[in-house]
């Protein structure tokens, strides 16, 4: 009960501040090398609504801060997928993935 209340409050907080407060999320990707980092960050950092994006390719975790009024989490995941990488539950766009250099293919670094 208590947690539900907290969640409710949290939601309230968000709904009030939605247009001002950017959201910070982490997305698990299939990217695993410096080249992938470059590709993902350079795409996302120039996308409207995204404050910053950072990929730690050792853990494959992408951290994104974005303004929910301008871009949604789903859109971000879609961008990552279109680049050829998995983003949480969204699978990578197959064609884009095939076009990636070898190191950026799934498990490319351990091949």
């Amino acid at each position: 009960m208590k947690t539900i209340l907290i969640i409710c409050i949290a939601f309230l907080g968000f709904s009030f501040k939605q247009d001002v407060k950017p959201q910070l999320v982490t997305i698990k990707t299939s990217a695993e090398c410096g080249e992938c980092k470059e590709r993902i960050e350079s795409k996302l950092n120039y996308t409207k609504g995204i404050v910053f994006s950072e990929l730690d390719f050792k853990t494959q975790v992408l951290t994104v801060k974005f303004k929910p009024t301008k871009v949604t989490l789903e859109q971000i995941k879609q961008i990552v997928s279109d680049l050829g990488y998995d983003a949480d539950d969204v699978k990578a766009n197959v064609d884009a993935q095939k076009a990636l250099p070898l190191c950026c293919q799934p498990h490319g670094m351990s091949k």
Partner: protein
Amino acid sequence: MKSIFTIAFFLISFAGFSQLKGVIYGKAVNETRKHLHNAKITSLITKEFVETDEHGVFEIILGKTLPDTLIFSTFGFRNDTLIVTNKDRFSIIEINLYENQILEELVISYKKTTHSISKLKTLHVEELGEGELRKAACCNLSESFETNASVDVNMTDAISGAKKIQMMGLDGVYTQIQMENIPYMRGLESAFGLGSMPGTWVESIQITKGTGNVVNGYESMAGLVNLELKKPQSMEKFYFNAYGNRFGRGELNSHGKLNVGKKWQTGLFGHASGLFSEVDNNKDGFRDIPMSKNASFLNRWNYSGKRMEAQMGVNAYYESKEGGQTGFSASRTPNLYGVTIENKHVDVFAKTGFLFEKKPYQSIGIVYNLKYQTTHAQFGKRIFNGEEKRGYINAIFDGIIGNTNHGIKGGLSFVFVDLTQKLDSLTLPRIEYVPGAFAEYTFKGLRFTGVVGARGDYHNLYGFQFSPRFHGKFSVTEKLDLRFTAGRGFRVPNVIIDNISLLATSRNWVIEKNIEAEVSWNLGGSIVQEFKFFRRKANISIDFYHTYFENQLIVDRDIDMNNFYFSNLTGKSYSNSFQTEISLPVLPRFDVRLAYKYLDVKAEYGGKMQQQVMIPTQRGFVNLAYKTRNKRWEYDATLSVYGKSRLHMVHFSPTEHSTDNMSKVYPILNAQITHVFKKWDFYIGGENLTNYKQKDALVDPQNPFGSYFDATRVWAPIQGVNVYVGVRWKLKSEKS
């Protein structure tokens, strides 16, 4: 009990660092072996990994549990593993990876470090990368060193606006400047050459303190500066830059590349700039900055074949400057005091490298260079004309003795110079032929690396010259490097052009008849300690260098107030330079660099040992750089504080002369903001933001043809705050 001790002992020894170095080569079918970039070396136990640098070199810290297995992997090559044991600590290994059956592409990428001291090099080399060069967007080489404490850039006189570099408090002529290991900015060009290289063409700069390797020639006495220009293999497909500043200076730069067939690539570079309006903010009747026109062009080619690699290019340059009294024009106003300078050069260069298929560690490289240049300079009524033809060839053999721990280089060089300097009625012609031979041995040990080299050159005018050099590096721990250097250098002074800015006075020049070659010995050392600052890489360095001149062209401004005396060194002349620098990433993406420099540059001037004029004994330096998390905003600020320097005494009237012959302490603050878009960069910046101006830069500006006029007592900026804006547009080459 005993076993506990043994275990404890083992633990201690394991807890110490255990470092392993190596080189990774790749061998593809039908191709020669080459260094592998960004190959991955993974420890099986710790799962930690490192990547090789652009030369295939890596350093890995081994884990505490040994033996461990290292996995070497990269794309398109079969993986390899190596079991490393306790005994392998500190050793150097060589790994060959073989191509996969299917030819898969190899992706080459490298990290862009902006400013660093190379850990692997034996010599103390400071590397200024693209990011560092971008911090000072304007305009040419003289600004490229603004964010750096090792090299000082000074204005030579208050009228021509010419700038010269200094290292260790010694004039730029004692620093050998090279463009991709080809001699650059020598002879006539040493006076005004800094302006001849547009900053946007430069990919990186390497600054070596002390004498350089013998391979590069005999002229590096205080240091060696190498410029790497952008190369067709790696540069942008198309690049465009426009710049404008508050004083009306405008600049356009552009370059692009083209693949011609499979083996040839070419890059085209163009530059045009100018200042067309008169600026006299201090109202002394003289232009603060000369009006100028400038154009430069470069076309370079790259060929990469199976056994041969070649690069060649042609560069043409034109510059014309008009400074002096406001309203001056060379053709129309003969009564006004003016300075006109016109420089032209054509430069053809080529480099060829041959590889041996069966001996991948061997190569032969040949460097060729032909240059023609002219300089015309007029300071008031004094006219200088110079013409220079230069030819250069340097052939280098690179190989090993037994194994790669013992490297050897050897070769032959030939320099031809035909230089004529004419000042009014004086003509100084000179033809030089300098055949030379050199050899260098490199020992790569576990912790110690040493380079011993020597070269002998036979100079047709100054006889045989022997230049021994020594460089050593000792890694005390994996984070602490000690370096030492010692060596001899020599050069032939070009009396007039080396000192041409001293024509901007009413003083006479008194030149001794037989000016000898300049010979110096330099020795020094440095300590570089890396450390972690909240898990971020930081480092601190301390270096000290002593340069001692056996002979030097001494320009004595202190004997009397009517003449400058040029003579061979009779007493002692030396320079001591101490510098300490700390580079600290205070916050993520926020770097602070602090430096302090002490210079003691003395020779006999005016009959007593005293500090060379215009050399501040102390200099402090702070550089702050911040990048936002999305890398789209870059902020940079540099504050330099220059200490007092000695000035020469000047007359104001027959009875009056200057009493305060010291400059003042002054700050220079530069700052820049860059906003990066996908294809566009915009930048806005300011120079000399504290608006410090030297008020008495000109002595007696009312009577420039009178006997008290002097424009060489300049030690600080004349113009105040400068504000500039610029834009860059680039099209990256497509990644395959």
